[in-house]
């Protein structure tokens, strides 16, 4: 029935097949969105005989952009008691604390460099690089060590005739 229509235009000319409609706030009846049927009634069809479903088209009217639903990650954060942008602060504070700790450590070592004795550590490290190599066949294992294996000198079991 036409009494069910919440909007009816005035009779317009069917010349261009064109009609502008501005979505009114009153149409929402305090709802966020409404599903509506748009229909055209030609003049030769009476109000009683008019069936909007015969050639109507369904559409929605909405008050604003639809808010996206939470993702799984957002839901997990909400479950952990983190809402809104709190997690940004958490994400930023962790590297900040690490950087501050590194800087503090650097200054601590810099200020105490004269009161530090790491000779034994250094000697141990140096000795590691100068140790005895052992047999020649293990050379590949000691590539990075300063000591280089010497080439074995030739040995002569028999004396030459000239020497003799």
């Amino acid at each position, binding site marked *: 029935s*036409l009494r*069910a*229509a*919440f*909007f*009816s*235009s*005035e*009779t*317009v*000319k*069917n*010349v*261009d*097949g*064109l*009609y*502008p*409609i*501005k*979505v009114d*706030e009153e*149409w*929402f009846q305090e709802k966020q*969105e*409404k*599903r*509506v*049927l*748009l*229909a*055209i*009634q*030609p*003049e*030769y069809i009476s109000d009683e005989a008019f069936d*909007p479903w015969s*050639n*109507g*088209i*369904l*559409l*929605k*009217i*909405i*008050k*604003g*952009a639809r808010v996206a*639903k939470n993702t799984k990650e957002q839901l997990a954060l909400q479950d952990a008691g983190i809402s809104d942008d709190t997690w940004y602060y958490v994400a930023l504070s962790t590297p900040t604390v690490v950087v501050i700790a590194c800087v503090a450590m650097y200054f601590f070592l810099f200020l105490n460099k004269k009161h530090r004795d790491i000779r034994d550590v250094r000697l141990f490290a140096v000795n590691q690089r100068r140790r005895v190599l052992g047999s020649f066949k293990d050379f590949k294992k000691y590539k990075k060590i300063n000591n280089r294996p010497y080439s074995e000198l030739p040995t002569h079991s028999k004396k030459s005739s000239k020497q003799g």
Partner: protein
Amino acid sequence: YRQAIKPRPTTTTSEVVKPWRRTIYSTQREIVTPIVIAGVTLSAKPPASSDPLEPWVSLDKLGNPKTIKPKIEKGRTVDGHPDYSTYFKTVHTTTFSPEELKAHNLETDELYTEEFFEEEDETYVSLNPIIRCTPNRYRNKGLAKDISSEPFCTPFENVEWKLHETYFVTWYTKFFEDPETEKVAERVRLHLFYVKENPHEKGFKKR
């Protein structure tokens, strides 16, 4: 020393479109008042010289206007004005007898029927820059998308109209032909009805 800057002359344009007059049907004179809706000027005064690259207005699936500027690329017009074919023309049939035609290959008892199209009265139609709805622009609707959206071209089914926005509803004018008189309806009314949604239909799209 610093030279004074001479201010530029200010130019003003009137945003208000002015009425204009024209003569229709040879003798009848009328005043046409342009109207601006959603940035589109309807019933504007046509330019003095016809320009084939004159912009026209298309509509998206919601019914939002979008200005299209035709251009020429490689000697061809791209995005030119829409061609309505014979959708708005009236078909007339003429029957010719063999005596009238005097065709050598027409039998004496045979009749020749010819169709010709009469151009529509463009008195009011030509003032509209927005693309008109024709059956070839119908979209299918329904769950299976197997029902034609006739007589509507815009909006498409299930689109979302936003608050305070203006949208153009377009339909094929010749769809509303009185079955008794076979004349196209001169006037129509648009109605909007609330539709009750089933609970499973709410948010069904997202899931």
